[in-house]
């Protein structure tokens, strides 16, 4: 470069230079707003269409051919039933797999690498493919039929990669000194894992689990694929019952041309979003409570 003082660029190019800067920032803000505005419009639309339809009658009635009599009860109970069973299946297996990969496996070993790549790939498989797996494996081959058990097993496979990835992240955040201290006192590997590492990681594992399950509760496609019913005038009473869930009920109402059913769909979405909000709120509250308690 030159050492002459008057080599400063002319004022006009300076303005142009900074105009570009402003423009990029402006477009960036616009793009960022696109997501936020859409979320706002979506919530506004759903509440405008569905809020008037929400009532105790709506929450406690079974579906009906007449939109004004129809309710969400069977779907709400079905969702809770399926998600509880999904949790029972996916959580122990997922945490165990994560413990193996994070605490036991030889990180550079070929088997551990293979399992790791495989889990990353499974996390990217479209949910409807899990539905086809569930249909072929649980519904047909194991003869479970389109039951709560088949649905929960399918969703358990679907959330397993998420559970494993979230648990591993939580385990990774536990300081190594905690493990070393435990070994120094003569504890075995499992004693260290069970009594020190897991409790220390528990709050963030819990958050990850609830987030994984709230993903499962919004899933529609895999459950439709395994043959979950769209019209269920009863609540499930065992793991072998046929069932429906909130998003399928919403889908069923959206697919009908009458405007009255669209209102039902919107009200159903509000119930679904409320369930999600409660789950996520619980996750955050529990994490905060447990973290304080451990301090």
């Amino acid at each position, binding site marked *: 470069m030159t050492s002459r003082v008057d080599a400063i660029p002319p004022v006009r190019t300076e303005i142009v230079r900074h105009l570009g800067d402003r423009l990029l*920032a402006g477009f960036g803000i616009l793009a960022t707003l696109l997501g936020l505005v859409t979320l706002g419009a979506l919530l506004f639309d759903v509440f405008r269409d569905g809020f008037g339809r929400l009532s105790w009658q709506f929450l406690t009635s079974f579906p009906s051919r007449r939109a004004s009599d129809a309710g969400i009860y069977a779907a709400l109970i079905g969702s809770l039933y399926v998600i509880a069973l999904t949790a029972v299946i996916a959580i122990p297996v997922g945490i165990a797999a994560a413990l193996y990969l994070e605490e036991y496996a030889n990180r550079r070993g070929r088997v551990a690498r293979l399992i790791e790549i495989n889990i990353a790939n499974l996390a990217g498989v479209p949910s*409807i493919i899990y539905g086809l797996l569930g249909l072929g494996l649980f519904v047909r081959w194991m003869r479970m039929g389109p039951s709560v058990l088949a649905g929960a097993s399918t969703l358990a496979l679907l959330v397993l990669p998420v559970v494993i990835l979230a648990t591993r992240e939580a385990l990774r955040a536990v300081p190594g000194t905690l493990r070393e201290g435990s070994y120094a006192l003569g504890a075995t590997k499992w004693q260290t894992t069970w009594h020190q590492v897991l409790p220390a990681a528990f709050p963030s594992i819990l958050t990850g689990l609830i987030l994984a399950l709230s993903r499962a509760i919004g899933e529609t496609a895999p459950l439709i694929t395994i043959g979950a019913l769209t019209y269920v005038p009863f609540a499930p009473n065992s793991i072998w019952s046929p069932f429906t869930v909130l998003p399928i009920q919403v889908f069923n109402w959206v*697919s009908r041309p009458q405007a009255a059913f669209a209102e039902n769909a919107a009200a159903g979405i509000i119930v679904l979003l409320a369930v999600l909000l409660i789950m996520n709120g619980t996750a955050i509250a529990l994490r905060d409570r447990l973290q304080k308690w451990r301090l």
Partner: protein
Amino acid sequence: MMSRSMRGRARRLTEFVIERLLFVCAAGSILVTAGIILVLAFETFEFLREVPITEFLFGTVWTPLFSDKHFGILPLAAGTLLIASIAMIVALPSGLLTAIYLSEYAPPGIRRIVRPTMEVLAGVPTVVYGYFALLFVTPILQSFLPGLSGFNALTPGIVMGIMILPLVSSLSEDALRSVPNGLREGAYALGATRMQAALRVVVPAALSGISAAAVLAVSRAIGETMIVAIAAGQQPRLTLDPRVPIEAMTAYIVQVALGDTPAGSLEYRTIFAVGMMLFISTFTLNLISNWLRERFREEYA
């Protein structure tokens, strides 16, 4: 003495058994992949015994549920690609711009508001987006696009793009943020503005990370089901016109699953054959995305 060594042995046995159990759970994930491939491959194989593979891959008519049956997957594949392309036209520029803004311009306060909101956007169930597309976005678009029919490819494409936006923006932002600050400072020292530093130095340096995000987004768009099942229609049609009803691959699977097709029939097997195509394409895209991400990590490790 005796009892102590026996206790030691019992403890070692417990440790061994527990480790094996944990290993079985981890290795079980490989069985899931194997299960997917086996189920899809078995039914697809049975399907291809009745339908020649050339007709399946290159046929231009898809009518398995009619009396005059044709099994050409191209209309379904075209529907999927059309919607995914529209989604990418929306998601890539806005996702990348959002990422550049958040990583290079925005004060931390804004970032603390935007990131959780984006997570909420990503956490909304897809059936809700379907409702939004069919009953909110389509009527608005119809008011200034008179030729737009109630079911079309344009609306689900746009809505899906916005649904995928958080994925693109958060992964791209991570990539931009992991570009070492020295590069930015070098650019500033040479007199570059923030825009010049961002577009000519930071974005090129993060390109493989950003491409990984883009490829993953395409894979997500191809596999997305409920938005297209609700808002795009059920008419397999080989067209690039985004205004008319079409059918995507995922939507076809939903359509058959909702009917009462007897298990073991040819119609029943079509959904596994379509699923196989879906699995192969998304799996390939995910592998490419992983490979790009690994390369990016190596560059800045």
